[in-house]
């Protein structure tokens, strides 16, 4: 087996685990996007910037806030940041929704996209001016430092926490929207807002809060990411394109689709990064050079350096077969 794969099963398992970690990031980010698109019909391009702001608020709370307010002992630790950063960024989102976005609901998607893209550029520009581009260090909280030796790999405790935390939040969100009364109002609001309003539900308020929640999810992911990646003004724009692909593959607006696709694509990416498939293709075609040559372009797609491309290849295939995405409904 190991001979055929060119990599030990243990090493492959390690790669899959890393894929799962990344997949849970994709899941929580695409979940926020999917909720916002599903209920507001807005393609929220500010999502990456809001993720970045979540990370920055955690950093500021830990390293700067005390200094700014003249009380050096004041430190907002990681755990408080997990709660406070989403609230702060969510409030910022609500402000945007109230003042700008709500004027665009009756227009084409493109207007919302342009507005949110513009806001993202402004936010990133401001943070770049204030904090520079090199990135800032945020330490892993003391309770989660170190890791477990799983035999086949060293699993940092913090990464395990990231998987648990994001999948838990994803599950709760899915449960609330799909299985509770509040969720049924939200879903009804997307189907027919006027009718729902006629039943006495405050639909505009509901929409505002939903946007705030979607944005808060992005900020939550940002705080989770802060100890792993450098806190950097461009950290969101590096990730957002992939996350959009995840939402499209899952089906625009589908809650479960976003979660399942996020985790699934993380795993696919992990397999490609490990180079297993490319090795298997090599071994299988080693007998006949003509077949090897014919299949070469396919093999290229499965080499580690193509791991950024593979998601978009999946997207193309899914859109060809199911234009509404894996879990989307055709209207």
């Amino acid at each position: 087996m190991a001979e055929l794969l060119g990599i030990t099963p243990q090493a492959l398992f390690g790669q899959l685990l890393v894929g799962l970690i990344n997949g849970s990031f994709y899941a929580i980010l695409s979940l926020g996007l999917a909720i916002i698109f599903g209920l507001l019909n807005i393609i929220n391009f500010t999502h990456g910037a809001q993720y970045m702001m979540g990370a920055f608020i955690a950093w500021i709370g830990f390293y700067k806030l005390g200094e700014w307010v003249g009380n050096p002992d004041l430190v907002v630790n990681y755990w408080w940041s997990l709660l406070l950063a989403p609230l702060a960024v969510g409030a910022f989102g609500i402000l945007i929704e109230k003042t700008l976005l709500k004027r665009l609901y009756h227009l084409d998607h493109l207007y919302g996209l342009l507005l949110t893209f513009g806001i993202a550029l402004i936010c990133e520009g401001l943070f770049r001016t204030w904090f520079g581009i090199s990135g800032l260090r945020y330490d892993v909280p003391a309770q989660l430092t170190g890791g477990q030796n799983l035999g086949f790999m060293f699993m940092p405790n913090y990464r395990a926490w990231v998987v648990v935390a994001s999948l838990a939040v994803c599950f709760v969100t899915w449960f609330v929207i799909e299985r509770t009364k509040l969720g049924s109002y939200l879903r009804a609001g997307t189907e027919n807002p006027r009718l729902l309003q006629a039943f006495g539900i405050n639909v505009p308020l509901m929409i505002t809060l939903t946007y705030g929640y979607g944005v808060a999810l992005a900020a939550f992911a940002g705080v989770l990411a802060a100890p792993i990646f450098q806190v950097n003004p461009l950290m969101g724009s590096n990730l957002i394109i992939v996350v959009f692909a995840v939402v499209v593959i899952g089906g625009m607006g589908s809650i479960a689709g976003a979660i399942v696709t996020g985790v699934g694509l993380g795993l696919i990416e992990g397999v490609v990064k490990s180079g297993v498939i490319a090795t298997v293709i090599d071994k299988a075609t080693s007998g006949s050079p003509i077949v090897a040559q014919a299949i070469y372009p396919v093999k290229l797609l499965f080499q580690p350096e193509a791991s950024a491309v593979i998601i978009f290849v999946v997207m193309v295939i899914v859109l060809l077969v199911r234009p509404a995405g894996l879990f989307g409904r055709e209207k």
Partner: protein
Amino acid sequence: MKKVIKQVAAIGAAGALLAAGVAFSQAKVSDGIVKIGVLTDLSGLYSDLAGPGSVLAAQMAIDDFRAETKGGAPFKIEIVSADHLNKGDIAANRAREWFERDNVDMIADLVTTSTALAVMPIAQKLGKITIVSGAASTLITNEQCTENNVHWTYDTYALANGTGRAVVKQGGDSWYFLTADYAFGHSLEKDTGAVVQASGGKVLGAVRHPFPGTDFSSFLLKAQASGAKVIGLANAGTDTTNSIRQASEFGITPKQQLAGLLMFVSDVHSLGPKVAGGMYLTETFYWDLNEQTRAWSKRFFDKQKRMPTMVHAGVYSGVLHYLRSVAATGTDDAKAVMGRMRATPVNDFFAPGARIREDGRLIKDAYLFQVKTPAESKGPWDLYHLRQTIPADQAWQPLADSRCALVTKKK
């Protein structure tokens, strides 16, 4: 004997150029203004290591030049700056506009190789000067070299040479590369691999990651499985800092050692000694080298609130040398000024006594540094131990290996 003749010839040539300069001084500086353009990355990935700091460094050079001449220079000096967004086509358009419409005489910095390679031939064609500080590739002084260009601060050869050799010497004799999948990463991997093998080490393999990347743990696990003693990071900027952080997170360091092949003090500052401590890297400047570097860096820090990188110091040094050459020749004619720049040694804190070689390479000392551990570091910018000064004649690609037409033509 042959060498002496060569030297005499060189002096003669320099004299002739000086004479030409004097002759030109009749013509004086066109429109009475020497205009310097700082074309750099003001908003992206490299805006901390170059960017606004490079504009400030150029301005400081102008201020110091004015102080030196006590306002006696018979021309005005102006500075313009623009963001090239790390894109070659934008850099080329801006350079053309500056040279043709705005009478810019010299363009400095040009961080990112693609922008430098786009602007250099335009300057050559229009009779203007480029002083490249931020870009890394050795193409600039080889296949793509031009008469009117100087590559001032560093290149991939010098970095690979310094770090690669030192790490092998310390016992790190088996390497695995983590490489950014584009021209720069490949060339850094190739240069370093050659140095490692020449020093008696082995290269076990390489994994290439998409550029830019965010999560490197998969690639790092592959590097770990290779069992190599040293993981060479043939990438730059946030790719490098994230790789280093994640290597420490997954317990890969300190069992295996990392070698950053293109790192600036701004990257190390952003990582902090806790994560980066113990790493080796090569630079051509560090603020805390001596009295002069400290004095200049303090002035820089007071304005920019960050310590200067080698790119900033290089921009200062290049602009100052250029202005002195303009003053000495009394003209802004590119040929005369470049002749003067090549004929006279540089005189400042960055490159004392350094000379410009035929291929446009500034030949100065490079330094091998080791990043301090948290216990050793006494402040946020107290980051490096100087481990070795690599003398100018050993730091750079030998002229014998040059692929620059200006050199090979003569052979």
